[in-house]
């Protein structure tokens, strides 16, 4: 019988991501509440149906409200402020999500050469998703 490997203490990747998962989860809840409140202030109660309001709450992109009764989407709904909100949501969401995928995968994959390979693959997918999403945000 040999002693158990005790994880290193301090600012390790695991600890940083553990804290980040909690903080980004709370941040996404606040961003969603903020987006929904702002939607109601801008007149969502009479101009939107429920699925449109949900799409806007999850991600405040003008394409998400384009099929509603809002007369002019460019006024209020599509501007730099909401683009920054979208980028924050994308950064928190994509990082939270791909870190979760890493945690789930590392529960089932042992310390072989596969682990660093999968970590690299997840890192590339994370980078690709962030770049593509920011491109879409800036072009919409």
């Amino acid at each position, binding site marked *: 019988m040999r002693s*158990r*490997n005790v994880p290193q203490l301090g600012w390790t990747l695991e600890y940083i991501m553990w804290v980040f998962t*909690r903080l980004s*989860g*709370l941040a*996404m*809840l606040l961003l*969603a509440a903020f987006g929904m409140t702002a939607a109601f202030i801008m007149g969502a109660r009479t101009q939107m*149906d*429920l*699925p449109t309001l*949900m799409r806007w709450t*999850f991600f405040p992109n003008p*394409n998400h409200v384009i099929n509603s009764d809002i007369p002019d989407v460019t006024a209020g709904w599509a501007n730099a402020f909401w683009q920054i909100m979208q980028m924050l949501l994308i950064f928190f*969401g*994509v990082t939270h*999500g*791909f870190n*979760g*995928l890493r945690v*789930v995968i590392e529960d*089932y994959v*042992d*310390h072989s050469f596969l682990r660093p390979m999968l970590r690299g693959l997840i890192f590339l*997918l994370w980078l690709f*998703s962030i770049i*593509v*999403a920011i*491109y*879409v945000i800036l*072009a*919409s």
Partner: protein
Amino acid sequence: MTLRRRVWLQGLRYRGGLPMVVWLLHRITGLGILLFVGMHVIAAFFLQQFGNDVAIAITSLYESWPFQIVVYFCVLYHALNGLRVTILDIWPQLLEYQREAIWIQLAIFIPIYGLTIFIMIQNGLIGG
């Protein structure tokens, strides 16, 4: 430490009760959201830039109300369960009441989700 047991088969026999079920659902809904959001971002890119047919098919699937009911379950469940986990992590003394916390979470989740999908199914069947 490496798990060399047959995790899947033992997991089916393991009786963790309600905390195990909510943990399992948290994983499944989390992976579901990652798949949904990842495909949605890529489809949005191809739709916006090239008007791609596959991207249009994926986007119209995402806009259909039965699919939105599934996505809404994943997002709301994952958000509320994650909030419970975060609260219990911030105040570990509350871990003594973790089963009660799960019941409170379900008592919040079921009315919000039920009311929303009631409206969505009603609108979907009428065609609104």
